């Protein structure tokens, strides 16, 4: 209760004289203001609290339609969150204690309290009720945690014991098997051992993920992420399971260039959990769609299926850790019940929400958003283009940093001339340079040498080079020779420019430190 706010009081008192005294005590000038509504019958009070919010009820115990401590119970039942202060004519300690037991915050003798005391008692009663509610909510939360703990023990023991049994069996088979470890039978036992070790490892990771999520310790590694690449990775990771479950999965993307800022690994896991859940909880033959679309400055992603759907009742519970959907009449479930809780936690760590839309018999769709990679409005300050046989090269200066774009084949013949031009651009414009190869169709070994030369030149001038938007075939070549490990590369020009800005600023700072 704050200074200056009005406290809304419901006075339940049938004696006009008593009602007048209370009202007068509360309407005296004071730093706390009270708005009072008076009713004479309990029935009226019960009707009024349904329509209007009150901060407290002052309750007489001798009403025409209810008498004694029972009155407190009736009001308490109708409004469990409303603090109640009992006013009695003839107070005995027994009655006072009885009313408190039934949920009243305090019990006062009518006409015997100073107005200041009455006001104070009202304020304390409201505070006490607030604290009590807080404790009750905490208690509910602890009960929920306790339930989780029991579920944890029960699920984890089963999920630990089963692979452990298979491991003991494989070990026993190895001990008593043929002496040659390469023997086919022993190899099978080893595979069984590996499979089940992996399964245990997966369980341990899931339990750790849930505990990190629950305690808010999940750490993200945000990076520029190619969402179409993520979708294809998820589909290939799950292809054995999807084949086994006879599911058809298709990607729904209109644009190949969908980039988001997110933790790539975590988003892969979210999608893996959603898709594998869909396949495990539906009949074979299911169709699953994995989609992504630009929506303003967001990327909307979804996993939709045409399966049996999730009832409203279950929708409320399936995100709880260790909760498992049970088929009607079955006591058996497979898995740990952690997949959805982890998916939701990981989306939430990105400050987004994992939404669920489902109708029994029609299918289910899980969706969430990610921040799209911002496409900055880069203002071009200067442009210079050259055409050399199959290669068009454009050098542009944005925000004091250079982007050199290659269109066509970056083959040996042009390179000497190109290097001279690049050197000129670097010395006149800026030593910070993004080499954009997104429209470069081919590259040979001298082309790769050229990229490294550019980098060396830029560093000579006190700057550096990054690569941006590699065409897939070129990316493959650069990956194969390991160049992408040493040269930073970005999916968009904007991201590359941002990275260079950061680097140029930090190098300026460090050089300042050195020279001062």
């Amino acid at each position, binding site marked *: 209760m704050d200074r200056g706010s009005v406290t809304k009081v419901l006075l339940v008192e049938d004696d006009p004289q008593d009602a007048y005294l209370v009202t007068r005590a509360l309407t005296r000038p004071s730093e706390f203001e009270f708005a009072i509504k008076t009713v004479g019958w309990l029935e009226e009070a019960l009707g009024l609290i349904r329509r209007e919010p009150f901060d407290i009820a002052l309750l007489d115990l001798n009403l025409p339609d209810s008498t004694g401590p029972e009155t407190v119970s009736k009001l308490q039942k109708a409004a469990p969150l409303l603090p109640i202060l009992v006013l009695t004519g003839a107070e005995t300690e027994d009655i006072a204690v009885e009313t408190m037991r039934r949920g009243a915050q305090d019990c006062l003798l009518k006409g015997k309290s100073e107005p200041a005391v009455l006001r104070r008692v009202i304020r304390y009663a409201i505070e006490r009720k607030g604290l009590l509610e807080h404790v009750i909510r905490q208690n509910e939360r602890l009960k929920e945690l306790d339930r989780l703990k029991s579920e944890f023990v*029960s699920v984890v023991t*089963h999920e630990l014991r*089963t*692979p452990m*049994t*298979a491991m003991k069996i*494989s070990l*026993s088979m190895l001990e008593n098997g043929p002496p040659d470890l390469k023997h086919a039978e022993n190899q099978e036992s080893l595979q069984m051992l590996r*499979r089940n070790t992996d399964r245990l490892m997966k369980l341990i990771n899931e339990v750790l993920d849930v505990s990190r999520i629950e305690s808010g310790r999940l750490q993200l590694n945000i990076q520029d992420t190619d969402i179409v690449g993520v979708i294809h990775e998820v589909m290939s990771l799950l292809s054995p399971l999807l084949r086994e479950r006879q599911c058809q999965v298709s990607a729904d993307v209109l644009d190949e260039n969908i980039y988001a800022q997110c933790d790539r690994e975590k988003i892969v896991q979210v999608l893996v959990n959603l898709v594998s859940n869909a396949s495990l909880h539906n009949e074979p033959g299911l169709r699953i769609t994995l989609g992504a679309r630009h929506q303003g400055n967001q990327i909307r992603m979804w996993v939709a299926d045409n399966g049996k759907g999730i009832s409203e009742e279950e929708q409320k519970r399936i995100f709880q850790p260790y909760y498992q959907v049970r088929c009607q009449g079955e006591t058996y479930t497979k898995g740990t019940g952690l997949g959805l809780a982890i998916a939701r936690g990981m989306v939430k760590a990105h400050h987004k929400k994992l939404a669920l839309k489902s109708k029994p018999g029609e299918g289910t769709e899980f969706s969430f958003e990610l921040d799209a990679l911002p496409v900055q409005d880069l203002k071009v300050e200067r442009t210079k283009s050259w055409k050399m046989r199959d290669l068009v090269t454009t050098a542009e200066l944005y925000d004091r940093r250079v982007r050199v774009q290659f269109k066509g084949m970056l083959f040996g013949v042009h390179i000497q001339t190109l290097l001279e031009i690049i050197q000129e651009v670097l010395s006149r414009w800026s030593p910070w340079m993004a080499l954009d190869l997104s429209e470069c169709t081919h590259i040979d070994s001298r082309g790769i040498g050229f990229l490294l030369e550019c980098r060396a030149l830029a560093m000579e001038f006190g700057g550096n080079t990054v690569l941006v938007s590699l065409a897939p075939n070129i990316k493959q070549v650069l990956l194969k020779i390991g160049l992408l490990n040493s040269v930073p590369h970005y999916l968009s020009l904007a991201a590359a420019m941002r990275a260079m800005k950061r680097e140029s600023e930090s190098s300026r700072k460090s050089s300042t430190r050195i020279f001062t």
Partner: protein
Amino acid sequence: MEARKKILIVEDEEDVRVGLSRILTRGGYDVDQASNGREALERVREAGWYDLIVLDVLMPVQDGYQTLDELRESGYEKIPVILLTAKFSTVDVAKGHDRGAGIYMRKPFDPIELMNAVHYLIGESNKAGAASGAY
């Protein structure tokens, strides 16, 4: 030569089922497999008899206890049963005993213990059979 004893393994976890079946085959038994309770009942009806059933409790379609009940109702109550379980409480043990399960094995068990239990139960039911035959 005495006929090889026949054992049915009922377990939904493929690795456990195949592994156990291999170990018991090495131990000199004929082994059939089923991956849930319903399949198990079909196997038993087809074969008409097993010398022992190794039965997992937690399975899809039909769990171990239901399967035990149906076996008893279908007149196969004399087949000795070893129950395998990952959950283990006195309630579970009582549920098993009420249905006449011979031995409870708690996962993860040592395959040697299972083998000992198999030898013991198969020997036991033979003796019981021999004794009743004498009367």
